[in-house]
C-alpha cells in the first residue's frame, strides 16, 4: 500500500513538471516524459498484478492531461510495461547505462503503441513518420532522465522505509 502511495506521489510530481515546469523552460524541443520512465520502473521493479494495473493507471492519468483520445496512453504504457517486464525478467537493471537502454527501449515501444492506438481510433491521428520521429526523440529523452528518476524513486522508498 505504501509503495502504491509512493508511486502515486511520484506520478503527481512528474505530471506537474510535465504540464507546468517543462513547458515554461525555453528551448526544449520535446517534453521529457517522466510518466513513461515511471512505467518502465514498474516493469523492472513491480512485476506483479499491481504493477500492471499501475502502468495502466499511469497511462490513464497521462490521457487526462494529453490529447483528446482517451485510452491511447493507457494502451501504450500497458504495452511498455509488458515489453519492459519481458526484458527485465531475463536481465538485471538497476542503474546507469542498462537503465538508460531499457528506458530507450520503453520509449520506442511507447511510440509504436501510441501510433497504433491512433490508427485504431480510425480518426485523424498522428501519422506514422511523425509519431516515429517524436517517439525516437521521446525515447532518447526518457533514456537520459531514467537514471535520475530511478534514483529519486529509490530515495523516496528509503524515506518511507520501504527498502
Amino acid at each position: 500500500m505504501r509503495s502504491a502511495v509512493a508511486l502515486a506521489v511520484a506520478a503527481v510530481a512528474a505530471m506537474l513538471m510535465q504540464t507546468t515546469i517543462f513547458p515554461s523552460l525555453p528551448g526544449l524541443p520535446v517534453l521529457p516524459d517522466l510518466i513513461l520512465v515511471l512505467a518502465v520502473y514498474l516493469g523492472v521493479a513491480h512485476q506483479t498484478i499491481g504493477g500492471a494495473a499501475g502502468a495502466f493507471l499511469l497511462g490513464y492519468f497521462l490521457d487526462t492531461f494529453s490529447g483528446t483520445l482517451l485510452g491511447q496512453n493507457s494502451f501504450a504504457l500497458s504495452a511498455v510495461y509488458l515489453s519492459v517486464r519481458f526484458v527485465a525478467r531475463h536481465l538485471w537493471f538497476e542503474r546507469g547505462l542498462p537503465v538508460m537502454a531499457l528506458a530507450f527501449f520503453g520509449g520506442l515501444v511507447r511510440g509504436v503503441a501510441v501510433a497504433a492506438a491512433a490508427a485504431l481510433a480510425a480518426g485523424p491521428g498522428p501519422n506514422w513518420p511523425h509519431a516515429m520521429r517524436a517517439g525516437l526523440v521521446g525515447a532518447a529523452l526518457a533514456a537520459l532522465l531514467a537514471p535520475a528518476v530511478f534514483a529519486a524513486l529509490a530515495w523516496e522508498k528509503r524515506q518511507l522505509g520501504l527498502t
Partner: protein
Amino acid sequence: MDYIRRNGVLLTVALCLVVGAALVVRSGRTPGRADPLGRAFLEVMAPLERAASAIGRGLSGSWQGVADLVHARGENAVLRERVQRLEQELDRLSEVEPENARLRQLLDFRQTLQGELLTARVIGRDATGLARTLTIDRGESAGVARGAAALAPAGVVGQVFLVSRHAARVLLVTDHNSGVDALVQRTRARGIVQGTVDAGCVLNYVKRTEDVQVGDALVSSGLDGIFPKGLPIGRVVAIDKRGQGLFQSAEVAPEVDIERLEEVLVTRGPVTPVEPAPAAPGE
C-alpha cells in the same frame, strides 16, 4: 485456476491492453469526453497545477536571468552583482506590466462581443507534446461547459473538451483533431481550418475555383455554432493546388501565439460580435 495464478500478471496486462484499446475505439467515435476518472484527476490536479504554474513562470524568469548573467561575464564583479540585483527587481516588476497590458487587451476584446464570457488563466499545457491542449483554471463551478469556445484578443484559441468542477481542458486550433469552419475574409470563400501534427494549421475543403491568395486573412464563419462569426483564425502562407480533386488547400499561420498564451476568454452560451453603431447623419 492454477493457470490464472501462475499467469496473473500477463492476464492483467492483456486485460489492460484490451480495455485501453476499447477506450481508444470508443473515444475515437464519440466527440468530447465524459470520463469520470479523468474529471477526478483534473479536479485534484488543478490547484497543484495552479501553484506549480506560478513556480514555472518564476523559473522561466530566473532562467532568463541566468542567461543574462552569463552574457555579462566580461564585466567586473561589482557591476555584475548590481546588474543581477537590478534584474531580479526588474523581473518582478516587469511581470506586472505585461500582465496588465494583456488583461487590458482582453477587456477591450471582450467589449467587441455580446454574450457571457469569462476570463480564465492557463495553468497547464499538454503533457506529452503529441497533442496541442491547454488546462485552464475555470470549470463547471464558473459555468464552463464542454464545447465552449476559448478566445484571445488575437482570435480563436480552441474548444473546451473536458470539464471538471474547477478546471477544464482546451483543444487548440493547432491540434490535428481540431476543425473550425472558416471564411476567407476577402472573398468569403468557405473552408475548414484544421490543425496539423506539427502544430500548424491548414485550410481544407475550399473549392478549387475559389480565389485564395497568400496573405489572405481567415475568420470564423460562425456556422459551426461554437465560435462567434468574424474572429480572426490565421493568415494564408502557402497554397496547394496539386492533385486532381475538387478542392484546394492552404497552409495557415495561426493569429494567436499559442505558446505565449497566459489568459483566455471562455464563452458561456451563445456569443455574437457587437454590431458597429450606425454612422451619425452628416458624418
